[in-house]
């Protein structure tokens, strides 16, 4: 099956709709508790091992990414380093991206970037925390690569026809962060003020910075 076929290859199942489904939460909560008890009783884990990982899962949050974005908006040399090597530039501010290499993609007046993971739900969790519900939904995973403009419109963002829309399917050893454009009229603000405009969704490409900056971020706190 390696010979070239025509320009388009039929995709079995492409006409079959994806089922969302959220069954069994109580059952799997109970399964998780049973697994936890057995792992501890058998000496596979200490409760403190689990607690340490939970603390590491709970610490990252969108404010960390917002600090990186705000720095890039105010410091051109940092912005250049960030786009060349996202992981190293994040580390400069004290953020270690543990799960993979961080790739930062920049929005411009002629280019808008959108992040998805069609195969599972890869996301820069060690920087931004857990992804939003819509990001891990099967609808987003299935549709963001094929009809990204329609999906963005459903999320409240219309991309102009003369702007290139570039989707990044995050499927292996890279994790992605969108560097949004700074909101108009923000030229006089300092980094901490700028960071308050940078929402989680803007760093995935599902919103513009400042357009729905409703999260009460306060002053970003660096990682402990």
């Amino acid at each position, binding site marked *: 099956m*390696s010979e070239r076929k025509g320009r388009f290859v039929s995709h079995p199942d492409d006409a079959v709709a994806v089922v969302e489904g959220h069954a069994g939460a109580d059952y799997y909560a109970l399964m998780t508790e049973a697994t936890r008890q057995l792992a501890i009783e058998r000496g596979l884990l200490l409760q403190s091992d689990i607690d340490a990982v939970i603390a590491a899962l709970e610490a990252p949050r969108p404010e960390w990414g917002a600090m990186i974005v705000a720095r890039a908006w105010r410091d051109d040399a940092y912005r250049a380093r960030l786009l060349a090597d996202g992981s190293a530039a994040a580390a400069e501010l004290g953020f270690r991206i543990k799960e993979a290499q961080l790739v930062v993609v920049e929005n411009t007046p002629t280019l808008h970037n959108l992040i998805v993971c069609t195969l599972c739900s890869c996301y820069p969790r060690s920087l931004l925390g857990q992804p939003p519900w819509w990001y891990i939904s099967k609808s987003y995973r299935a549709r963001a690569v094929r009809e*990204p*403009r*329609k999906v963005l419109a459903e999320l409240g963002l219309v991309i102009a026809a003369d702007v*290139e*829309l*570039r*989707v990044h399917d995050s*499927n*292996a050893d890279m994790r992605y962060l969108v560097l949004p454009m700074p909101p108009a009229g923000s030229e006089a603000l300092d980094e901490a003020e700028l960071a308050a405009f940078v929402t989680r969704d803007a760093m995935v490409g599902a919103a513009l910075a400042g357009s729905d900056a409703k999260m009460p971020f306060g002053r970003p706190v660096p990682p402990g």
Partner: protein
Amino acid sequence: MPRFSVGDRVHIVDLGKAGHIRIPWYVRHKDGDIERYCGAYANPEDLAYSRRDMPPVDLYRVRLRQIDLWPDYAGEAGDTLDIEVYDHWLEPGGSLT
């Protein structure tokens, strides 16, 4: 030395493998351009079966045109999609454009 350079035209093959694979169906048999070389990484096709000591494989980001991916693409002609692809899923591409 990585086999491909930035800008090279490549063809994403379908290895027809079973098991854990990170190359989605919709990009197989498609052509694109190398956007960047990402480095060499352990192959998920091995990691998924506890084979942790295999040699790393080269990973690239490939840029494809949406109108080449979907016959009914309803966006703009200039829209693109970037995706990571391991070296063994690529062959030199293209006479299509």
